[in-house]
């Protein structure tokens, strides 16, 4: 319990036209952990992820990330602070190649001025090479080398999900948000992606918050599980603790443990 929380949410509430999507939710995620958000459809999981990365603004509550407190933030500011994410319905740049998509993830890391870039002088050429190398490293890490010059739109769904993960990873985030990374995958693909997530977490030290429906996958993967139901938090703890929580059992796992 030595490591301090990287992400802390306190009293977060969000409503759409009077309908409460999220009601006074608070939890914290320790640096280096994998935290899973689970709950039935409409429980507010995606909304919560959208609040963390600034797509939605919470009406109440405070978010503390890496020690700084904030109430509102835009997605591009979140990206600058080291929060990267993937989306439930893949949001890749479909007309670009895999490599270009991953390179866009590194856009923030450029330091040379646009004049240097246009004329290919000064810091730009060396930087280009570095960008390219880092992108290739990520591509290798997620084993998508064979497709790196393919246009994303032509790839199968499972691969697109992996490319999106690669783009998020390319920005070297401290916190990675994954919205149903395994939706629509078969058992083997899920297994494969789980091991990628574990690798990212262990080898790169990236903290992960993910939404997943497959309880088997979640229990094997997560250090911490947060359970939502109707916009409220009904469980929070290790997979073993959550499994024993009677509220969770009633609401989510069914009445039989």
């Amino acid at each position, binding site marked *: 319990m030595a490591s301090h929380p990287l992400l802390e949410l306190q009293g977060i509430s969000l409503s759409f036209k009077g309908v409460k999507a999220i009601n006074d939710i608070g939890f914290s995620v320790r640096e280096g952990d994998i935290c899973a958000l689970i709950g039935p459809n409409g429980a507010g999981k995606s909304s919560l992820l959208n609040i963390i*990365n600034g*797509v939605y603004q919470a009406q109440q509550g405070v978010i503390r990330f890496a020690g700084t407190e904030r109430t509102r933030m*835009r*997605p*591009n500011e*979140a*990206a*600058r602070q080291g929060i*990267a*994410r993937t*989306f439930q319905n893949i*949001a*890749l*740049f*479909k*007309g*670009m190649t895999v490599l*270009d998509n991953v*390179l*866009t*993830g590194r*856009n*923030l890391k*450029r330091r040379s001025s*646009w004049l240097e*870039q*246009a*004329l*290919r002088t000064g810091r*730009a050429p060396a930087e280009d090479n570095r960008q390219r190398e880092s992108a290739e490293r990520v591509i290798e890490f997620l084993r998508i080398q064979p497709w790196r010059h393919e*246009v994303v*739109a*032509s790839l*199968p769904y499972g691969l697109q999900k992996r490319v999106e993960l690669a*783009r*998020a990873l390319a*920005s070297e985030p401290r916190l990675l948000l994954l919205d149903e990374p395994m939706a629509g995958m078969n058992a083997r693909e899920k297994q494969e992606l789980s091991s990628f997530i574990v690798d990212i977490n262990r080898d790169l030290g990236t903290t992960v918050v993910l939404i997943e429906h497959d309880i088997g996958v979640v229990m094997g993967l997560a250090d911490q599980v947060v359970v939502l139901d109707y916009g409220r938090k009904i469980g929070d703890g290790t997979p073993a603790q959550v499994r024993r929580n009677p509220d969770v059992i009633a609401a989510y796992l069914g009445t039989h443990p």
Partner: protein
Amino acid sequence: MDFFFEVVLGGLLAGVMYALVAIGFVLIYKASGVFNFAQGAMVLFAALTFVSLLERGLPFWLAFAITLAVMVVLAVLIERTVLRPLVGRSPITLFMATLGLSYIIEGAAQALWGAQAHGLELGVSDEPLALGGLLLSQFDLFAAATAAVLVLVLSLLFTHTRIGLSLRAVADDPLAAQAIGIRLQRVWAIVWAVAGFVGLVAGLLWGARVGVQFSLSLIVLKALPVLIIGGFTSITGAIVGGLIIGASEKVAEVYLGPIIGGGLENWFPYVLALLFLLVRPAGLFGERAIERV
């Protein structure tokens, strides 16, 4: 045979003028997937501002610099008041917004500077020049050289820089672009400012050729076939499309005109564009949409 080459070359050079207008459209289309109907109004606004400043006794470069500054301010204003509130809306919504915008800009131009036509003298004569036995317009050559420099600068800016990649990302998926840290607002403001600059250059050349007047904003319609042939997403396409239109309409006018009647120039480009739509809907250099079914 010399006469034929003269016609073709003259047409190609005139085509450069079309290409110049088309490039402004391509820039904005690439960055937001929107056909900016207001581009013609921006050309008029820039030319009118420039010529009015010139007539008030300002030196050429100062008038140019001030007009450029005005176009940048206009771009930022458009981003704040029109684009930002419409983030994530469908392209047709944005297109309608640019349609309205074109009227506002035209109105503003006339409210500011009046509705009368102005002559514009750039100091380049329109006298024909004998080159290797061919007679070519000096002004056309000057316009072509200007366009070449402009294209070179744009391609340096947009293919090698971070802005270039951001631009494509924003065009492809604005939400995802924001999530990886791209400042949507800034990219849009930059693109519209650059389109304003291109509009200024086009406005000066067109203004010098046909006079600075209200009908300048109608060159939108002339750019449309150029874009259909070249493709909406490619600057190279805009140039090639412009050249094809320029050359083919002149050749058609000279050789077909006597047979089926004059005034061919006015409708021939549209027929050509229609044929392209049937054969190659994405244009010569446009990105074809790839979709998994």
